[in-house]
């Protein structure tokens, strides 16, 4: 039994839901993200948020998977602050939905001033509505700088409790600083551009298992919706205790996400 706390099922087929369920997935969370193209209007985001809060929970429930979501405009679409603020205005109406866990995945992409301005607007939105936050950190050469800028922005904002914020996509060069500053951290298991299951297991062995989880972030690019069970298998092959494997793939996400009061793992298959 496991939780995949970051996966973009809107980009995946129903077969993937079935495979995940067969591998033991009981719950997922799906942050709002960049769809691979820029949406042309705030109405496009309204439709996207409707899919995340209505369509995907029903699709997941067919296979006994509890679906939850986080809402935002992704930093890749934040370079136009006027447009981004129009999207932010429609988020509060969706925060009433039972499956919405908070604001995410917000953060930075290229570490630009406009991205930072919209990140700060999201932090204020989260504070105004007492929401938890899921943070996206930049890719590749931009990650370390962006991770630090994001943590500084949250600190300077001064309202959000780090224990209610998860900084995602950490790797070897960012994980220690994120944990030391009191945040939760997520490792994304990607074939090329983030952590492999092996490196994630290495990071657990070097940095511990407290406040740290794994996710697939499966989406429309090279990614694997079964990456979490593959990491569990890697840890099992190395001889780690079942309790350790369960902690990083079930107990930790359950502990963090349960702070929302909305997270559940008990959906019966509807098909």
């Amino acid at each position, binding site marked *: 039994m496991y939780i995949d706390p970051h996966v973009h099922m809107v980009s995946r087929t129903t077969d993937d839901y079935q495979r995940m369920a067969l591998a033991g997935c009981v719950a997922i969370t799906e942050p709002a993200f*960049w769809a691979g193209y820029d949406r042309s209007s705030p109405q496009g985001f309204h439709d996207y948020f409707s899919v995340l809060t209505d369509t995907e929970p029903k699709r997941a429930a067919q296979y006994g998977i509890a679906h939850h979501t986080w809402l935002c405009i992704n930093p*890749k679409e934040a*370079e136009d602050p006027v447009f981004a603020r129009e999207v932010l205005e429609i988020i509060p109406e969706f925060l009433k939905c039972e499956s919405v866990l908070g604001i995410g995945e917000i953060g930075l*992409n*290229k*570490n*630009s*001033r*406009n*991205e*930072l301005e919209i990140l700060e607007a999201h932090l204020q939105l989260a504070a105004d509505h007492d929401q938890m936050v899921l943070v996206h950190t*930049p*890719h*590749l*050469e*931009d*990650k*370390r*700088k962006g991770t*630090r*800028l994001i943590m500084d922005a949250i600190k300077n904002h001064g309202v959000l409790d780090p224990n209610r914020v998860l900084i995602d996509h950490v*790797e*070897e*060069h960012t994980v220690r600083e994120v944990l030391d500053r009191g945040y939760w951290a997520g490792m994304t298991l990607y074939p090329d*551009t983030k952590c492999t299951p*092996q*490196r994630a297991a*290495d990071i*657990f*062995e*070097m*940095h*511990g*298992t*407290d406040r740290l989880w794994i996710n697939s972030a499966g989406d429309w690019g090279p990614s694997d919706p079964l990456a979490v069970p593959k990491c569990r298998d890697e840890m099992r*092959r*190395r*001889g*780690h*205790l079942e309790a*350790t494997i369960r902690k990083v793939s079930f107990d930790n996400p359950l502990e963090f996400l349960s702070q929302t009061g909305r997270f559940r793992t008990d959906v019966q298959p509807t098909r």
Partner: protein
Amino acid sequence: MPSSPPKLPLSRSAVVDRYFLEHRAKVLDLAAFLDRVDRAKPTDGGSADDFRLVSLRGAIMLLLDGEPERAKRILDLMSDPSTEPIAAAPMKGATGAWDGFKPASARDGENG
């Protein structure tokens, strides 16, 4: 109370037994990639050495220095070291390497 990191339960020889062939193949992939770059026709007007290759060679040097935390140090080497936000995002993607990296041998030759 924070828990201790779970220690790697395998012996050193077990790690080598389990992972050697996989990483032998990765080293050969890397060697073949560098050979392929050398065999390729030079890019018209392009610089002599792509910054990503300069970065990759710097990373390879770190592999052999015998010091710990190689993965972290390679990621650091490939990271943008600046600290201020940039004026505007020039693109959505990332290249994988910081374009300002210079190997130690080049830095040694700099004045001031």
